[in-house]
Structures are given as C-alpha cells and as structure tokens.
C-alpha cells in the first residue's frame, strides 16, 4: 500500500539537505515495525512518518466513536493526539511479533475514545433536543438532496444513541482494507463477538430509523 509522506513543518525545514532527503525516502519505504524500532531509539522523524501514514485512520475512528458534532470533532483530535503520544512513550515496549503496529494503535485510539464517550454519556443525556440541534440543517437545494441530507442527519442522531462500543464496531466495519480479524483485534474481542456487536448495532439503527415519522 502506498503512503503519502506528510511531515510537520519542523520536520520539513530539517529536510533541506540531500542526505536528509535520502533518509526521508528511506523512511517512506520502511515498515511500520522498523519505524517503531527507530522511534524507540528516540528518532522523532521516524515517528512523524508513522503519524503521516496512520493519523487519518486514527482520527476517523475516534471521530466515528465520539460523533460528528463540533465539540466531538475537537475531542476526536484530542483522542488521536493522546493515542500517538502514548504510542511514542511506549515505543520501546512495542513487540511486532505480538501485534501489528496498526492493531496496537487502533486499540489505543478506540479505548480512549470509548472511555471518553462513556464519561460524556454519564455526564448528561446522549440524545435530546440540544444534541439534535447540533446537527447541521439539510442544505437548501433539490428535494432529493435535501432528503438525503435529512436521512444522514437522522442517522447521525441514531448513531449517537448507540453504546460507544457499538459505534466502535460500526466504525471498524466500514474501514476499507481492514479484515474482520484485524477489526476484532483492535477492539480486543473475538470475531464472533464483533459480529454480535454489529448485529445489535444494525438492529438498533434500523429500529430507530423505522420509528422516525
């Protein structure tokens, strides 16, 4: 799988010399395990390469567990940042023989996101007029476009009522390129248990959508 090399500004500035450019090209071709080994030795540039490769999926998973309201988007960024920081701090303890880097990272992201979603749920009601008001109104336009946007808003609201772990299962199921085994490992459950979570989530979503007038 090809990965784009996205480096932060502090790293790009340091990449001006040909030697550094060659090193960055080496990093781009390195495996995740090799990059983690370099990170464990204190190589921040190697870790930045890992962030470039996997940051988007980490953020997407956090976002899909925490929801799509403006506040939740900020929380998702916090969760993804915290997950990478923990990965950096624990880099020396990462064992590629036991798990793939992505499985390890996704598990950190999902645990943090689920914990945060649960804390938020116990702090207040998950769904009410206030929560529904956070979703944007359907954009004005053709009737079909408005109906699609309304259905999406309804689905967002329905997703917000699911338990955080069910949202995590849905998030993993709709990640392209992720096998069932990898998704189950990321959630630290068996494949059968993951299917059970998906079944309950889909049944609940269908019931919520059918119940809407």
């Amino acid at each position, binding site marked *: 799988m090809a990965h784009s090399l*996205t480096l*932060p*500004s*502090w*790293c790009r500035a340091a990449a001006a010399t040909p030697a550094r450019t060659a090193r960055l090209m080496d990093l781009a071709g390195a495996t995740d395990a090799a990059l983690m080994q370099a*990170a*464990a030795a*204190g190589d*921040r540039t190697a*870790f*930045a390469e890992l*962030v*470039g490769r996997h*940051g*988007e999926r980490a*953020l*997407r998973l956090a*976002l*899909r567990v925490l*929801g*799509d309201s403006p506040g939740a*988007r900020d929380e*998702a*960024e916090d969760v*993804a*940042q915290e997950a*990478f*920081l923990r990965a*950096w*701090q*624990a*880099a*020396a*303890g990462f064992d590629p023989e036991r798990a793939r880097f992505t499985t390890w990272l996704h598990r950190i992201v999902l645990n943090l996101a689920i914990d945060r979603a649960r804390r938020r749920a116990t702090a207040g009601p998950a769904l009410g007029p206030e929560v529904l008001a956070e979703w944007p109104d359907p954009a004005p336009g053709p009737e079909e476009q408005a109906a*699609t946007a309304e*259905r*999406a808003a309804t*689905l*967002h609201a329905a*997703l917000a009522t699911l338990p955080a772990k069910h949202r995590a299962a*849905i*998030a993993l*199921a*709709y990640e392209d390129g992720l096998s*069932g085994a990898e998704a189950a490992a990321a959630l630290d459950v068996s494949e059968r248990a993951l*299917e*059970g979570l*998906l*079944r309950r989530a*889909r*049944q609940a*979503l*269908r019931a919520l*959508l059918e119940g809407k007038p």
Partner: protein
Amino acid sequence: MTPERFAELLDRRGPALARWPAADRAAAEALLAGSPAARAALAEARALDAALRGALPRPDPAALARLQDRIARSIARAPLPAPSGLLARLRAALHPAAPAGWGALVAVATCALWLGLAGVPRAAVDPLGPLLTLPLAGESL
C-alpha cells in the same frame, strides 16, 4: 438456509456477500434465487449499508493537518520513549530516589552494605579490669 438465518447473517456480516465464508455465501445465493423475502431483506440491508457509508463522519484535511502539527509539537517536547525491560524499568523507578545523582545513591548503598557486613563492633576491653583482682595493700594474703 432459512430467511431468518439469512437476516441474522446480514446483520452480523453486512450485505457484501462476497466477504462471507464460501459455504454461507453459496447457501445465501441459493435462498435468494427462490425467496422474495430474502431479496427484500438484502435490499434493505444494502440501503442501510449505503446510508451508513454516506453518514459516517470523515476528518477534513484541515483537521488532519492540525492533528499532525499538534502531535509533532507534543512529541518534540515529550521525553524520549521509556526504555523497556526489567532492569531499565527498575532504574527508571529508582531515579527519583537519587536527588543528588546516582553517585550519591551508590555511595549510600555501599556504606549501608559495609556497615551491614561489618556488624556491631565489640565493646572495648577495660584496661584497668585486671587490677581489680589484685590484693590491696594491707590485705592479708
């Protein structure tokens, strides 16, 4: 395969039959060929699947760039990764106990060891003790 079992598998595995195990896929296809109810269930599952794919939030490029920048800044400030292994963790755990540095800690440990091995010194022998047993002047022998 019954329509009920098919509906359960649709919820468990989703409507992409190509991703199902071969045996279940073959049984599902046989059911679909003769069951309008199964075809309706599949259509409904596909509609929910498509709606979910469209509704699930995606991070925008600005958020991703912001995240990468935030991580880079926090990693630049963060200490180097904690070493792994029992010895390294023990050294890290003991580090706060050495306010004057490892040299002082080692010196204290050496002194403690030396004192422990040397044991408590015996009380000095009283040099005048034997005189107390001598007969005093005038005392009959």
